[in-house]
């Protein structure tokens, strides 16, 4: 896909996520929207190796949304790849449905459980190490929250991965600068994350996480890796795509009013509806 197509696809993803969340009044929209462009680039920008319709394809690249509260960002994509029926999106969080708030490893296309922060990078290192031992070429991509980088386990895993030269492992830090109670730099400063990852022995690059040209350039670095895992610090806006949510921590898991609902629908290119619900 070219950049225009990717932008269209990203809008489609945000639309799908909006309908999923608002139908049930559940989900983490702002956290999903901040990494929606990255996810779009991964799946539709020619980055990932996968086989549509076959979630168990042995050489598929592995994706872990380690910031598990945003796992829903993958659901429309996984349905689009034919991993499960699209009707499941309408049953998001419903009893008997496949898709829950957090990543459940039983969902086709979800590689492992997430929800509690700080586990995905170590799990991803396990995938990457196993791939090397078994002679597989697949890569492992782990989407981390920047708030998640407070967890000490992330840095244990970062150290381990660099030591083992896991250049088949990519960490993408969704640097939206927000956690539930405010801005990371005001709460406990994370500082220069690119510098931190580099000091742990990783290749590191900072990009605009909503700019498909920059995202594409970052992933292009995967073709010339040098024994170091790659950290992409994606500077993003939490809630990107819905003006009143953008950059505002209070929307982490709050649901909009009916009026706000239609404002958002307008910005997302969705038709207004009575009561704001589809």
């Amino acid at each position, binding site marked *: 896909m070219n950049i225009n197509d990717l932008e269209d696809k990203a809008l489609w993803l945000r639309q799908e996520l909006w309908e999923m969340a608002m139908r049930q009044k559940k989900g983490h929209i702002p956290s999903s929207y901040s990494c929606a462009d990255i996810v779009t680039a991964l799946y539709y920008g020619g980055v990932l190796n996968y086989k549509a319709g076959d979630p168990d394809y042995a050489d598929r690249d592995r994706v872990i949304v380690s910031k598990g509260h945003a796992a829903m960002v993958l659901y429309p994509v996984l349905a689009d790849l034919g991993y499960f029926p699209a009707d499941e999106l309408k049953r998001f969080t419903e009893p008997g449905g496949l898709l829950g708030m957090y990543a459940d*490893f039983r969902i086709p296309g979800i*590689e492992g459980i997430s929800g*509690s922060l700080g586990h*995905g990078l170590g*799990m991803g290192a*396990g995938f990457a190490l*196993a791939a090397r031992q078994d002679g597989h070429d697949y890569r492992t991509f782990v989407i981390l929250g920047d708030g998640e980088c407070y967890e000490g386990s992330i840095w244990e895993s970062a150290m381990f991965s660099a030591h083992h030269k896991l250049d088949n492992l990519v960490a993408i830090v969704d640097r939206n600068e927000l956690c539930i109670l405010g801005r990371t730099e005001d709460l406990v400063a994370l500082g220069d994350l690119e510098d931190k990852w580099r000091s742990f022995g990783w290749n590191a690059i900072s990009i605009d996480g909503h700019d498909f040209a920059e995202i594409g350039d970052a992933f292009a670095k995967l073709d010339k890796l040098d024994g170091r895992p790659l950290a992409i610090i994606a500077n993003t806006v939490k809630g990107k795509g819905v003006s009143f949510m953008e950059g505002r921590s209070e929307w982490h898991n709050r649901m909009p009013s009916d009026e706000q609902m239609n404002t958002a629908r307008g910005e997302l290119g969705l038709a207004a509806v009575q009561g704001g619900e589809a």
Partner: protein
Amino acid sequence: MDMMARPQLQRDAVIETIVAAARKDKDILFISADLGAAALDSFREDFPDQFIHAGIAEQNMVDLASGLALSGKKVFLYAMAPFITARCYEQVKCVIASMNLPVTLIAVGVGLGYDHATLTHFTPEDIACMRALNGIEVLTPSDANSAAAIAQACIDDPKFRYIRLERQPLAALYHSGFDAALKDGFGHLTAGSRVAIVACGYLTHNALAAADALRDSGIEAGVIDLVRVKPLDGAKLTELFAGYDAVLTVEEQLLEGGMGSALAEALIDAADGRRAVVPIKRLGLRDGFEVVNGDRGELHRLYGIGTDQIITAAEHLAEALPA
């Protein structure tokens, strides 16, 4: 001490068993958080791909294990008991238990094994916290032979298990018959009729010494080595204790949630609302226990779980019971 006479350490028995299997199966991975063993040295040299040093970083060790296990690896994690349990408990809960992955957690020095290291190295709560994990099997060998047999079971039928190893060498108890003990979850080491003393690991040896002394003074005490504290077969244990007048449990754990607690729960549940089969007295660490310098035996006396105190408690039980 004559080195030849010293019994094999449980950790060496376990590692030798795993190494023998790893020679034939490259999917077996052994990961240590900086804990060694004599048997580990050659393994590290001979199988650099199958031995992984995790660093002193138990959180990553467990998360890493999840990714490896999801990729089809048979993973054994190895660390000092306090650090492979409470230290990384949330990791074990979230990425091993939640997906019921076939990962074996091997702890060395359970209970008061690191006697002089005191509280940070004690695990008076490891049974309570680990048995609370969904889907886990919890096993305590009481000699090197049973440790090796448990390791073999982990290789033959990989599942989510927690193996509690004693730090010190223990005299051999099982020369045969451990298969049945592993199947039932307990070994009925000494038959009796009055008081059944239930212990596991290190304290099984104290229980045997106590039972000998009790029989000398006319009290027919039996000894049950509770190899598997989870899951427990309540029906089978009920049947076993039907042959006794009372049960005395002894453990290096806080009574809250420990081995005796698990046993009592299993008997209550097996009774399903009826009166449980047998009176139970528990010995173990009590809330508010004091931490002092001292060797294992001194700690046992302080906490009321020494051999003499087991004998006294059994005598009191026998006195209170109808002859």
